[in-house]
């Protein structure tokens, strides 16, 4: 009996850690959505495809460079690409109704997906993992090193970003520009530059999410990020669409909930995980529309 309990407990902990690993990926992409939402009040539907595109870039680079060199190069390209998309596609429609901007991001989604098929073809690829797939024993429970590595990378990225927003001048400018663009201009913040930087940072978050998501799947193709974008939506709604902290907590929580439901609820199994996320969106919107950490629509008009 005691032995069985220990095994059940170990199994449960493994599933929680595995959920946190997926959750770290959702959190990164959800944070990207929140960054752009706070700055422009628009959900960037292309966030997933931007991440997919940069993951393919990483795959190409990894054919020529060691893993971490390719990793850093990918982040640099993602940053420049994200900022360029803002300049070329979003800026011209900046003052258009929200629906117009949303449609531009949907166009970008379709465009990037097509472009990635054109460049890389439809053969499935395999992305190198920086982490061993071997298990590691901690306190008698075997965890996957890859899971722990993904959690570590996601959390490190989030911590770096929070430090950047909290303690650097540009980070402060980014926050101010999102909260009150008119007052920001008066103190000398270049608000349009901040918007481009915000898109660049969001693209970097997506690139990390993509590079962490692809290896555990074994093979990936251009549809890599589509389910993950839906999980990220759910995570952002759960945490509060205007709350960066909420995106992170929501992402981790969602990863664990979905994984536990898939493992322990027979009816959910492997097939109904995504619908679990959608049910969570629905419940949050009905019960607490602002999410766990979000604010009710109390936004001042600039």
């Amino acid at each position: 009996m005691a032995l069985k309990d220990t095994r059940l407990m170990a199994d449960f902990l493994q599933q929680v850690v595995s959920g946190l690993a997926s959750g770290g990926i959702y959190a990164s992409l959800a944070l990207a959505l929140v960054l752009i939402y706070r700055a422009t009040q628009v959900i960037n539907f292309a966030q997933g495809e931007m991440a997919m595109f940069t993951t393919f870039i990483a795959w190409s680079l990894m054919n020529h460079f060691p893993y971490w060199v390719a990793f850093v190069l990918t982040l640099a390209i993602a940053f420049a690409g994200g900022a360029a998309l803002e300049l070329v596609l979003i800026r011209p429609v900046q003052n258009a109704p929200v629906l117009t901007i949303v449609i531009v991001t949907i166009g970008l989604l379709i465009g990037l997906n097509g472009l990635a098929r054109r460049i890389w073809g439809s053969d499935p690829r395999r992305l190198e993992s920086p982490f061993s797939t071997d298990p590691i024993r901690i306190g008698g429970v075997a965890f996957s090193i890859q899971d722990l590595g993904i959690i570590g990378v996601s959390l490190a990225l989030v911590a770096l970003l929070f430090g950047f927003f909290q303690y650097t001048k540009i980070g402060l400018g980014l926050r101010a520009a999102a909260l009150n663009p008119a007052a920001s201009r008066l103190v000398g913040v270049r608000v349009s530059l901040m918007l481009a930087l915000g898109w660049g940072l969001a693209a970097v978050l997506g690139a990390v999410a993509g590079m962490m998501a692809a290896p555990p799947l074994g093979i990936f193709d251009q549809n890599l990020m589509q389910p993950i974008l839906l999980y990220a939506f759910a995570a952002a709604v759960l945490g509060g669409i205007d709350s960066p902290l909420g995106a992170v907590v929501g992402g981790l929580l969602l990863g664990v909930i979905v994984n536990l439901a898939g493992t322990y609820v027979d009816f959910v199994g492997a097939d109904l995980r995504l619908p679990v996320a959608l049910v969570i969106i629905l419940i949050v919107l009905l019960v607490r529309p602002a999410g766990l950490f979000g604010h009710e629509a109390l936004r001042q008009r600039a």
Partner: protein
Amino acid sequence: MTLLLELKDVGASYGAVQALHGVSLRVEESEIVAVLGANGAGKTTTLRAISGTVKRSGEIHFGGRRIGRTPETVARGGIAHVPEGRGTFAELSVRDNLRLGAYTRPNEDFQRVYEYFPWLEQRSAQTAGTLSGGEQQMLALARALMLRPRLLLLDEPSLGLAPLVVRELFRIVRSLNEEEGVAVLVVEQNALIALETARRAYVLEAGRVAVEGESQELKKHESVRKSYLGY
């Protein structure tokens, strides 16, 4: 006295509505100047034309040079604009609001500002939105001071504040002017305190300068007295 700011025949409009019809005014170095007038006379628009937050015509010179066209460049040039409604970042901490004031500066000199507003130091971690109206107006002034401006633009600083708070606010503005030589262009509904503080004043009517002169003279000016001082 040297000329710091000069507006020559400045016009401005919001879409089809013209708000300013050729306003000319000047502010000398280290001078306090008030702009009075009824609602809709163009007082706020005059400040907005200077800081580049409204499209304008005519010429504006600051420190001998043509002034920038965007609020970002005007701020970098040393003009701090405290807008109507204060422009406080309600969601950010007091300290972050002050840091934003020094956004264009190479360093953040909190101590200098805390000398004028000692209570801000203890409450630096507080969210600005939870301050009272008077405290938020003080914070807005403190934030402007972080820029180390040569010219301060104040838009209706007394709006919605208790008389005692208004007194305190203008006392600090005067001491800033006396001790640091900051020039001030202040728009006010409260003509009495504005004329007490400013050396000179302009009265705007329907987007034009109707009367200008030394504050002492304007206090005796009959139409100014009747319209704005109420006696």
